[in-house]
């Protein structure tokens, strides 16, 4: 056998081995359905709701879903037995949010506190997934319009003075099924402030987290720390609560030093202090309705 022949036999031998190994592969039919790489799956349900407690969470509504939100904050617990520890006073915010796409949500709300109307738009350019970004990034912008009568109708009052604006970046990660964490640098701009010392622009940075205790119960916390000085007599908002899920509803029960339920009022208008017992009990109810169904369910085939 010369060298050429040897090579040829080796080649043939290799071919036989190769074709028989492909036969072995046939045996594991199920294994052959294994994906070379798992399909992309986006992180969902980092938080039960689109709000952690009062602050926006890294969650969005799905496309075609309408969320009717009823928010309550009672009076201060330290107001004593005469005020039923706050239950005699209630402040509310009613809101409607809608998911235009899975990445874009808009919403409007009305608060009884200062008769404010607010609106926002929230977009998710980066969405955490198993084979892509390790975190989600969302941008929120909104306005808050004060609805109280002018304090002094005799001076020059401008409609623009009623408006405040806010811009927020949310960077969050769902670390596991049970634990999520997000950071929220936020700018609130008020067109009109009370005194010359007060700043129009207030920058703060927030942190929020969710820890699931069971499939239907979760512990939530959110806290904002101001960077530019808050007006005198105002403090950083801290809220601690529970999310309870029952079918189509999410109940959020919490304790907070903030009476406000929109970005202006809780970021710049929180006048309570936890250390003094200025704590409000509150709850949010979120009820979702599917307005536009996924394409598979639009037409019933019978």
């Amino acid at each position, binding site marked *: 056998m010369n060298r050429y022949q040897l090579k040829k036999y080796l080649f043939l031998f290799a071919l036989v081995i190769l074709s028989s190994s492909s036969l072995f592969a046939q045996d594991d039919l199920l294994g*052959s*359905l294994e994906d070379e790489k798992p399909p992309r799956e986006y992180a969902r349900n980092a938080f039960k709701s689109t709000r952690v407690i009062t602050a926006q969470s890294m969650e969005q509504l799905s496309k075609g879903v309408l969320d009717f939100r009823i928010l309550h904050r009672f009076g201060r617990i330290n107001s004593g037995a005469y005020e039923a520890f706050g239950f005699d006073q209630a402040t509310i915010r009613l809101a409607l949010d809608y998911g235009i796409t899975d990445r874009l949500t808009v919403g409007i709300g009305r608060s009884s506190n200062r008769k404010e109307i607010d609106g926002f738009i929230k977009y998710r350019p980066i969405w955490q997934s198993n084979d892509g970004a390790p975190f989600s990034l969302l941008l929120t912008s909104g306005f808050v319009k004060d609805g109280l009568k002018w304090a002094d109708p005799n001076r020059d009052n401008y409609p623009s003075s009623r408006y405040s604006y806010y811009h927020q970046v949310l960077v969050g990660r769902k670390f596991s*099924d049970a634990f999520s964490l997000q950071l929220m640098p936020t700018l609130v701009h008020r067109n009109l402030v009370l005194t010359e010392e007060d700043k129009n622009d207030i920058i703060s940075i927030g942190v929020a987290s969710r820890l699931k205790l069971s499939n239907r119960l979760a512990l939530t916390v959110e806290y904002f720390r101001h960077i530019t000085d808050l007006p005198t007599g105002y403090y950083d908002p801290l809220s601690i609560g529970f999310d309870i899920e029952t079918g189509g509803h999410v109940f959020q029960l919490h304790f907070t030093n903030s009476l406000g339920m929109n970005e202006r009022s809780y970021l710049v208008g929180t006048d309570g202090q936890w250390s003094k017992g200025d704590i409000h009990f509150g709850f949010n109810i979120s009820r979702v309705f599917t307005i536009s169904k996924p394409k598979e369910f639009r037409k019933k085939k019978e």
Partner: protein
Amino acid sequence: MKKILLSLMLLVGLNASAQDTLSTNNAAINFDATSAGSPEKIEAISKQVKSKLVVKTGDFVFAIQMQSFEFEKSLMKDHFNENYVESTKYPRATFKGAIQDISKVNFSKNGKYPVVVKGIMDMHGVKKEVTSNGALTIAGDKVTASSSFKLLLSDFNIEVPPVVGDKLAKQATITVNATFNKK
């Protein structure tokens, strides 16, 4: 030596072609777990099911990514993935089995052949034997395998809390439809 090798290769080659494995990535599975009298339908569909059928032996497998199930309401999808099938922990469900009476099926003659499928369903970390009636439909180059069977959710450690008992049934009807191209 050379001849032996060549004939051996030929044999192997023939064998492989006789295996004739049909495959698709677009088989459909839907399930209905609606409780009697429920105000809303608890049903879902996925059309991204991978499936293979070996013509000669009747070996039949499919695999589905649980997150690919679409529901009428996105909240149902959230609850399905998070609370019931725990799809981050158990992302796939698979079936590995065989069509028992594959020899009765004439793949070159059009028609609907009733068959029995038997195999192991692997879902939510539980493996369970399933036997089901089904049909193989031959129409030209198309071979369609279809079957419908019921699974008890409790067999797969999927709990139904009493609070949703009036909507969610204790068992789900699963319908599988896989269409293969012979060529």
